């Protein structure tokens, strides 16, 4: 770990101000991802701004019947919230499908969205990785890439975004609220938060440097059933091989792209009356794969129709 300085932000405004003024500063919330990366010197911030105790940890009803989830609300807190459980069960299911109880107790809503990939070559600093060290190459491309992307990958990076929660939020059409370094509040669709890798996989979001996520806003739940299904190597505490969030007619896929993947083609096909089998086939027509992750295509072809049926009251 590299030496760094630390401050605990007194307010949301102070946090953003400090981030704007201090070179190479990073926010730290639960720390469950950032600290691991710092120990391995994958992240080497010179200054940490602790936002973990900022008073933006509540969950409140919005005027239109949705929910505003503070960025510091812990994953456990959100998953257990009665309103979330009853109106957004896909979100609870997705959160509890991730990590372990201890991690979810620390992990925050904002931090979860911005967690970095679990690509093994990203974690091994002896290997080339364009995301960790731009221009060094991509170790996974010709390597052991069983868990890499099948949508939107580039020759520079085939990593996936590992968050489960974000997949559910994507299916739920969530909005992200931020405070930018200039002090201006912004809000935009979660679909616009993460980027595809392109030539610059080190740039993972459309956030302005130093911009703080302050809340996630959920619109009223869409009509129809919801479910989150995650396929993994072991029953708990494992990254997904692929996952799907169903919320009414909305579909999002996880562990398949550099961002939570909204399956718009499949949704469109469903809306036009296609069967779930045909709908996911339409989405997968665009999928590409590397040497070892082709199974994800078969997996989704089989999983998504089952999940849609389950959301609509089929067998669990």
């Amino acid at each position, binding site marked *: 770990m590299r030496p760094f300085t630390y401050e605990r932000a007194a307010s949301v405004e102070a946090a953003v101000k400090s981030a704007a003024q201090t070179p190479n500063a990073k926010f730290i919330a639960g720390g469950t991802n950032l600290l691991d990366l710092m120990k391995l010197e994958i992240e080497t911030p010179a200054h940490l701004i602790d936002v973990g105790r900022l008073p933006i940890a509540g969950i409140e009803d919005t005027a239109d019947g949705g929910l505003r989830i503070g960025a510091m609300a812990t994953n456990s807190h959100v998953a257990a919230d009665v309103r979330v459980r009853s109106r957004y069960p896909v979100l609870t299911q997705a959160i509890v499908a991730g990590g372990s109880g201890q991690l979810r107790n620390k992990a925050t809503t904002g931090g979860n969205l911005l967690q970095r990939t679990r690509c093994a070559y990203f974690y091994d600093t002896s290997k080339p990785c364009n995301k960790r060290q731009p221009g060094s190459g991509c170790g996974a491309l010709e390597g052991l890439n069983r868990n890499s992307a099948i949508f939107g990958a580039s020759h520079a990076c085939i990593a996936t975004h590992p968050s489960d929660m974000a997949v559910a939020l994507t299916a739920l059409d969530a909005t992200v609220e931020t405070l930018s370094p200039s002090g201006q509040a912004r809000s935009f669709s979660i679909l616009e938060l993460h980027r595809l890798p392109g030539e610059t996989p080190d740039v993972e979001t459309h956030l302005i440097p130093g911009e703080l996520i302050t809340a996630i806003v959920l619109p009223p739940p869409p009509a129809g059933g919801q479910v989150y299904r995650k*396929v*993994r190597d*072991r029953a708990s*505490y494992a990254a997904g091989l692929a996952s799907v969030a169903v919320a009414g007619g909305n579909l999002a896929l996880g562990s398949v792209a550099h961002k939570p993947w909204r399956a718009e083609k499949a949704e469109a096909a469903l809306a036009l009356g296609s069967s779930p089998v045909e709908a996911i086939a339409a989405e997968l027509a665009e999928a590409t794969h590397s040497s070892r992750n082709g199974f994800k295509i078969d997996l989704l072809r089989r*999983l998504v129709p089952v999940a849609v049926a389950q959301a609509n009251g089929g067998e669990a």
Partner: protein
Amino acid sequence: MSSVLDWEATPNPVKENRAGNIGKAVDRYEGPLKVTGTAPYAYEVEPPSPPAYGVMVSAEIAAGRITAIDTTAAEASPGVRLVWTHLNVPPQGPRPERYDFFTPSPRPALQSDRIYFFGQQVAIVIADTLENANAAAAKVAVTYEADAPMAIFHDHLDEGVQPPGEQDTEIGDFAAGFAAAPVTIDDVWRTPLQNHCQMEPCATTAWWDGDHLTVNTSVQMVRFAQNSLAETLMIPAKQVRLLTKYIGGGFGGKGSFYEDLVLAALASRELAQPVKIAFTRQQMMHGTVHRPATVQHVRLGATPEGRLTAMSIMTVTHCDSRGNFTEHASNFARSLYAAPNRLTGHRLVRMDLPVASAMRAPGEASGTLSLEVAMDELAEKLGIDPMELRILNEPDVDPETGKPFSIRQLVRCMREGAQMFGWGRRNLVPGQVRDGRWQIGVGMAAAIRGNMLLPAKCSFSVDAHGVITVRQGMTDIGTGTYTVLAQIAAETLGVPLGDVRVEIGDSELPPAPGSGGQFGAATAGSAALDAGMNLRKAITEIAVADSASPLFGGPSQDITFQDGVIAIANRSERLADLIRRNRPDGLTADGEIRPAADARNWSQHTYGAHFVEVGVDTVTGEVRTRRMLGVFAAGRILNWKTARSQLTGGMIWGVGSALTEGNSVDPRYGSLINQDLAGYLVPVQADIGEIDAIMLDEVDDKANPMGIKGVGELGISGAGAAVANAIYNACGVRVRDYPITPDKLLAAIMAR
């Protein structure tokens, strides 16, 4: 030399078990320390003065040489005390041609510019704080000239050579028997490289007092490590005190020791200051040892009635470029089933990979994953219940050596397990049972693992309070050694368990070989029993000679030890009173055990039967175990609770071997892909469901004076095969390439 007949001598308090300490589910002696976080593991031991901290730098190529190491920036980094590479590390004893677990020899660190495997340690940085050492270690700049590593095992299977000093074993004429067999199985199974993943990484705290070294480290074999370290440092062994009091898992991976120990010793001498060095989790994966991958070719031939006529397992495995370790995946088959024509053997491929070595049940853990599935396949071909097929081929004597079995209750394990598990309700046709999205199947497999006894010593003391102290250079790697030694002492001297102290994990104590090969409890415990009997004798002599004792005059042979009281007929006194009068400073007796000269006249093993129920989601290829039962016959059980934990722990590892565990090599770098516990998946609680282990009543009087045997490695043997067989019963497909992950199972299901 002694005979097993000597072990029938009486009295034998362990066999008599009057106070009932033996077999009881006694809580762990050191349990409260561990669960309250107050047991000092090696890295946490407080040295006599503030320590410096070391961080190792590991090679980032798998083969080649170091052309330059620039340590200037590291040396200038804040707090740095010392930076060593192969260019300036102090002289050490030379590395021998061959290594093994029992012969001490030097294990020098940072020896040359040559790199033999990815993750080999190439430098050490010592600084005033761990943070400064870490920061400086990142500044060591190493330049390599890399060779293309030979790292794809499956491309070099034909290059396997006979392991040194070994031959294939053939009985009868396997080729002819197999060719003539009306029903055959001929398949290949693959098992992956596995890492031990002990909770506690290897770590050492070392300091010197003049020319005497004290090291606190995490190793399974005390005396071996002490002697090897002394030879490495080129000093007499008596100048090295090695302590290893609490060990956070070993599993064979701490059978030897690594650079943390050697470099901490050298650096603390150089700096005249205590030094702490620990491996990181990432360094554990490459820099210690692993279970190598295997490819196993199994051929079975049988009559239509189900009698095996031919049986063969030929294993190809790998080790490092300078090694000899062989994963003997074929060996167990030599004693398991009767068949007149048999062929077993191994081929070893030396590769540019990290060092291969023993991991829990070396041989059996991998080997049962093939043969015990092949038996399931054969049973199906024959239309015979897989358990009945095994019973049909149960041998009367060891099928290879013709020796009698010391005791063999394998059939009873299977029959009792079948009844408890409900094996009879198994659906013979795969893929018939469903529970929601899960297709349900059950499978079974046999378990076998050898049993050993090694030479060991022990001492017992009693003090003026009647408290017994057991002293032995033994280790407890989380298995329960402290606890079973206390039980043996309490039973032997007739004192309450609370009046026993156990001191182990110290090279100054009477030597025992340590923990490994499931010989620990039998070996250490037998020496303890002998020490206890000698202490009884010494106490008796004092009592009958002490005119102030009610026991004065004897007869000695009638003495009893019970509840802290010694008695002859109706004359008695407290043990503490006798000792206080006669030996206020306490009384000590030594004991020892040696293997009996005739012990090898019997074929001696531990046995078991596994029954598993799994669910398979045939949409996703996910497998979850739902129910597991193991029934085991492993001699007298010293402690129901710790033995059961060992057995269920092994069974859980079997689930991991079947479903999740394995590390893949990226051949371009010769390095392993999984470098932490988020990537290397061992089973978690949610993977296991219901689990139980039953231990049959048994005494093996050919094993040792207590009639006990090991359980540490038995549970894993066969467990994974039972899972694989259950998967077949659930969904009708077999994956012979472990672990059976969703991607592989899905491909098999889709190809069906």
